[in-house]
């Protein structure tokens, strides 16, 4: 019941936004005005990730407009709360709004799968900064009919078959004979990622997977059965594949139970908010994520702060890269959905972090990887790429 209301509110919001974008388009005649969209969780438990990414897109647009007078780019915010059920309600409106010529996002894999049919039908090209589920670009996956995003889906982030091994390695780094307990939050991002993590752990000599793991719905607040399993298994490392708001609830309970096992999580947990919500219990958590703007170039970060009024957040580099691909297309006169799609497919350039941005036929870039982050003093501190 709740979900339905939430979804209909989101539809209304998307509709109002598209009207707003329309009004703004017709207002100015002298400047060339085009509309892009960003999709991700802008409210709800995962809002922090979406707001960080959208700020990246807004920053890219600001820089573009300043460098190219005569262009005005409107940005439609599409709030899917990171929830597939909400995404499937807002995506139809975005798919049929022809004003939108390109979309940065969706941020989350589950929401991406739910949105894809509508964007395929409308030939709306999307570039996701953070959806890492493998099947989105895998023509051989078991769920190819629903998940495979060709020809409209692209991403500027590496996939979970790379993240899994990175997370496994980083979680047990420096530990002798680690006993690892792995559990997921049942989402379409977390379940396959857990598979990749476990597969990687099995290959690491000395490491062992203990217990039978667990699969915990993301509405869970009482983690005592999971903690009992961790204790029985005698785990020294706990890896959670899921998102940060649940991870924060869990880690508090784990620490309160007296456990000192190392806690590690994937890029779903990788968010400043995790450290904030978890407080002291979150210290020394090991997370895999991507390098931030300040890691790439402190000068860029200073400029970002000056223009946006806030520091950049997670996936800032990827969001800016994705937006820039669309913006360069607009500058080259590719202003219809079909033209933008062709432009993105044949695009070749370098990202802010020096990554080569060139999509293969499935929509993936060849480079890119994950870095390890350690929560230290309430902050996510980059420990460098995990190799």
């Amino acid at each position, binding site marked *: *019941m*709740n979900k339905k*209301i*939430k979804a209909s*509110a989101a539809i209304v919001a998307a509709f109002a936004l598209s009207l707003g974008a329309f009004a703004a388009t017709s207002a100015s005649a002298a400047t060339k005005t085009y509309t892009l969209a960003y999709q991700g969780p802008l*409210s*709800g*438990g995962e*809002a922090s990730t979406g707001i960080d990414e959208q700020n990246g897109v807004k920053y890219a647009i600001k820089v573009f407009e300043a460098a190219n007078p005569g262009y005005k780019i409107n940005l439609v915010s599409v709030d899917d*709360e990171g929830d597939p059920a909400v995404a499937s309600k807002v995506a139809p409106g975005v798919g049929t709004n022809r004003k939108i010529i390109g979309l940065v996002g969706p941020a989350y894999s589950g929401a991406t799968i739910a949105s894809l049919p509508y964007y395929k039908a409308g030939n709306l090209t999307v570039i996701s900064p953070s959806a890492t589920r493998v099947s989105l670009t895998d023509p051989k996956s078991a769920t190819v009919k629903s998940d495979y995003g060709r020809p409209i889906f692209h991403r500027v982030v590496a996939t979970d078959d790379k993240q899994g091994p990175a997370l496994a390695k980083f979680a047990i780094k420096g530990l002798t004979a680690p006993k690892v307990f792995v559990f997921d939050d*049942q989402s379409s991002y977390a379940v396959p990622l857990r598979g990749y993590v476990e597969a990687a752990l099995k290959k690491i000599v000395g490491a062992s997977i203990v*217990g*039978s793991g*667990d*699969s*915990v*719905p993301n*509405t*869970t*607040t*009482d983690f*005592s*059965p*999971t903690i*009992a*399993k961790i*204790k*029985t298994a005698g785990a020294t490392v706990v890896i959670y594949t899921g998102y940060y*708001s649940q991870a*924060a*609830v869990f880690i*508090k*309970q784990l620490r*309160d*139970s*007296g456990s000192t096992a190392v806690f590690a999580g994937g890029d779903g947990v990788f968010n400043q908010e995790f450290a*904030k*919500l978890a*407080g002291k219990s979150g210290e020394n958590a090991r997370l895999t994520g991507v390098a931030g703007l300040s890691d790439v170039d402190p000068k860029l970060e200073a400029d970002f702060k000056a223009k946006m009024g806030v520091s950049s957040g997670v996936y800032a580099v990827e969001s800016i890269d994705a937006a820039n691909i669309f913006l360069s297309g607009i500058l080259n006169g590719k202003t219809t959905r079909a033209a933008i799609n062709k432009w993105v497919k044949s695009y070749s350039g370098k990202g802010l972090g020096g990554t080569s941005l060139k999509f293969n036929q499935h929509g993936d870039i060849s480079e890119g990887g994950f870095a390890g982050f350690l929560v230290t003093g309430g902050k996510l501190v980059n420990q460098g790429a995990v190799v």
Partner: protein
Amino acid sequence: MFTVFIDQFWQLTISGIALGFIYVLIALGYTMVYGVLRMINFANSEIFMWGTFGAIVASRDLFRYNQTTEPATGGKLALVLFIQLFAAMAFAAVVSVIVELAAYRRLRARGTNRLATLISAIGMSMVLSETMRLMTDSRPVGSPRILEKVILTEVWGAQIRLDTLITIVAAGAIFIILERFVKLSRMGKAIRAVSMNEDAAKLMGINLNRVITVTFLVGGLATGAAGFFYVTVYEYTKFNIGFTMGLAAFTAAVVGGIGNIRGAFFGGVFLGLAEVYASAILGTQWKAVTIFIVLVLVLLFKPNGLFGEAVQQTRA
């Protein structure tokens, strides 16, 4: 499969009982209203959610605690916890009475059937949760840590933690007080009289509307107290927690025999334990499945719940 269950039996049992006591208090809200009105107050789950926010508002805004503040100690701790409990109960009781006045009383006055009231309850539930969603931007709200979660002692390998102990003792006490109130006080007798036979109660000079308001008030107090314990143990709330917790508590009330206050107690504890045991034995993904299979089985063999209704329904 059973290794975790055997190895951690006492730990699981304590966690299950603490969770169960929270269910008991919410179940009380459902069962009392049902006893008097023969109606499921679906808004009760959201009244619980509002109660959790009441507790957080008290610690965060009244006492200015935040995520980095050190937990309270000594007399301050007792004071803050007491005010939090009071705030949660008051918040929930006020919301509960407002729901009754705004949504149910008018329908009753017009002599509508119970189905209309039921739909109205679902409507109120949505209104309450959506209002909170808009107010919090759908974000989870973390509660500052007021109570340091000290591990007091270990019994048979199970940790007795301060917050668990407080939950079990205080929730138990609140339950007993409310149960005694209904059993012994003049108002409680009136509530039971209405529950047995509304028309006869009216003829005896019982003010029906007053009895109903008090029932909602008491149900709200119990549900609000549950909100306080929830916040103390899990330090977290969100606009949509009511649904899961409310459904579980409602199930507890039905398992125990809805309308029966002691039934709510046993139902709540039973459900808390069943959830934790099922998660430990089969995996958390099987929790909901197990619980509802148990519910169906109970209703199959004991359609009135384990303890039956306290009073055989006298109405048609």
